[in-house]
């Protein structure tokens, strides 16, 4: 009876679901591919989401920053070609100042400094012109509560009282087109984000499922040995989740590096209409949810696959 000395009365019961990893799935061949796929998908998801965020940033900057924006110009040269007197120029500026302060439909306005105006003008004159001696117009940038044709007409009427060559410059004609363009780009970005999101879900789920198919025999065997479905699926879930987590972390780290590189390379300065690629805390949190989503997808797919495999067994 020496042989059977190892025996003792075991309590037959359900699996205790300990954290031990019965199946060293991580050694299996397809793992690398699954990892790569999840990484790629996370990367793409991150890229498109960032794109959508940036596009949102651009349009909101434009619509809030430019749509109700106008500029009042007191030309330095009068319509007869004579230079305006410096005193007259500041008198006009003060009058306008007073007028603008009174108008309820004007949110804010600011008289631009001589230097700012010189900066704006200099590109047209070449770098070697001494702007200090130039006759410069006075520019007042105005932010309106709303920019209906009505209000613009009213402002035009009023400023013409002070001098009839004072001009009000708005950006409507081209801005509406730009906003339309931005709108359709943003629309595309949302669509593409959705598509990539769907692709990511399908690809992760598909990869997990096709990996699981490899273990169909193992699942059947564990079932025949009396393992509960929780015992079986927990093995595979842990495996898939770890792989997907690794993959998506790799993906978003690569993504972050790519974004960094991109924002260094892309030609966007301070005065540009294109905002620098600056993501807020909220956006970063959303992006960091990508690995969480990947893990969740992997977890659910593994569970469903195992349960379906089990339900397909003859008993």
């Amino acid at each position, binding site marked *: *009876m020496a*042989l*059977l*000395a*190892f*025996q*003792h009365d*075991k*309590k*037959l*019961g*359900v*699996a*205790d679901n*300990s954290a*031990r990893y*019965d*199946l*060293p*799935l991580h*050694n*299996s061949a397809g793992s690398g591919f699954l990892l790569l796929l999840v990484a790629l998908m996370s990367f793409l998801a991150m890229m498109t989401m960032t794109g959508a965020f940036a596009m949102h940033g651009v349009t909101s900057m434009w619509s809030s920053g430019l749509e109700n924006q106008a500029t009042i110009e007191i030309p330095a040269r009068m319509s007869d070609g004579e230079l305006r007197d410096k005193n007259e120029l500041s008198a006009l500026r003060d009058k306008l100042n007073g007028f603008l302060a009174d108008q309820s439909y004007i949110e804010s306005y600011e008289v631009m400094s001589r230097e700012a105006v010189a900066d704006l003008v200099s590109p047209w004159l070449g770098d070697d012109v001494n702007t200090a001696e130039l006759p410069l117009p006075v520019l007042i940038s105005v932010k309106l509560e709303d920019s209906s044709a009505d209000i613009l007409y009213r402002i035009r009427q009023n400023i013409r009282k002070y001098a009839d060559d004072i001009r009000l410059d708005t950006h409507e004609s081209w801005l509406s087109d730009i906003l339309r363009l931005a709108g359709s780009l943003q629309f595309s970005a949302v669509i593409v984000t959705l598509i990539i999101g769907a692709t990511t879900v399908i690809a992760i789920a598909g990869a997990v499922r096709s990996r699981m198919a490899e273990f169909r*025999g*193992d699942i059947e*065997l*564990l*079932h*025949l*040995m*009396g*393992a*509960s*479905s929780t*015992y079986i699926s927990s093995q595979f879930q842990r495996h898939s989740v770890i792989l997907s987590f690794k993959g998506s972390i790799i993906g978003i780290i690569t993504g972050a590096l790519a974004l960094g590189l991109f924002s260094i390379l892309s030609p966007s300065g301070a005065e540009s209409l294109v905002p620098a690629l600056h993501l807020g805390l909220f956006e970063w949190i959303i992006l960091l949810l990508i690995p969480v989503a990947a893990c969740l997808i992997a977890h659910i797919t593994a569970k469903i696959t195992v349960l379906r495999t089990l339900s397909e*067994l*003859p*008993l």
Partner: protein
Amino acid sequence: MIKFEHVGLRYGVGPEVLSDVNFSLEPGSFHFLNGPSGAGKTSLMSLMYLGRKSTRGRVTMFGQSINDMPQEGLAKLRQKIGVVFQEFRLLPHLSAFDNVALPLRIIGTPEREIMSNVNELLEWVGLGDYKQSLPLTLSGGQQQRIAVARAVIARPKLLLADEPTGNLDDEMGFRLMNLFEQLNTMGTTIVIATHSQAIMEKFGHPRMMLGHGHLNIEDPKKNWLQRTMDGVF
């Protein structure tokens, strides 16, 4: 222990592989299952280890009817059954040790106990040097011994072995048969499918003969008179 009443089995839309099988096995009994290749031995086994549902008739195991038992109940029953599959069915990703340890892990045996029991059994079947080998690096006979070890490690109430000595020389075959005999004396009910006349003759347990979908039990220990009497009454 096991009771089959008018049991039939067909795969898909094919012909019936088993038709009207009737028998009952007492706890602690030891039977050989015999019949030509393709007769349905493996199929009959799969009904007994709860791997398939019969397409008709009633199967009773451990006193409980299988036909309408919920999954948890079936899992509990399966934990009391040890199976040696004809094609071994070892987990290719697991070492010999982990393959043998699996049934113990499923019922939640403490790791320390698993260590000593599995090691002892592997030594006994002559595989002490192959504990960490993966099944694919083992010879046919070595794999078969691991399959046998896995089936007996949790000391099942019912042991079903499908051709457990097909890849083994006679000496190792008899050695494993002795292991089964020992388990049997400790109360395990045993059914062994085999083609080997040598083994069936040497151990002389009653034989379940399968052919044309029907099953007859012959007991060579009963003499001619007794068998005739059985037929009469």
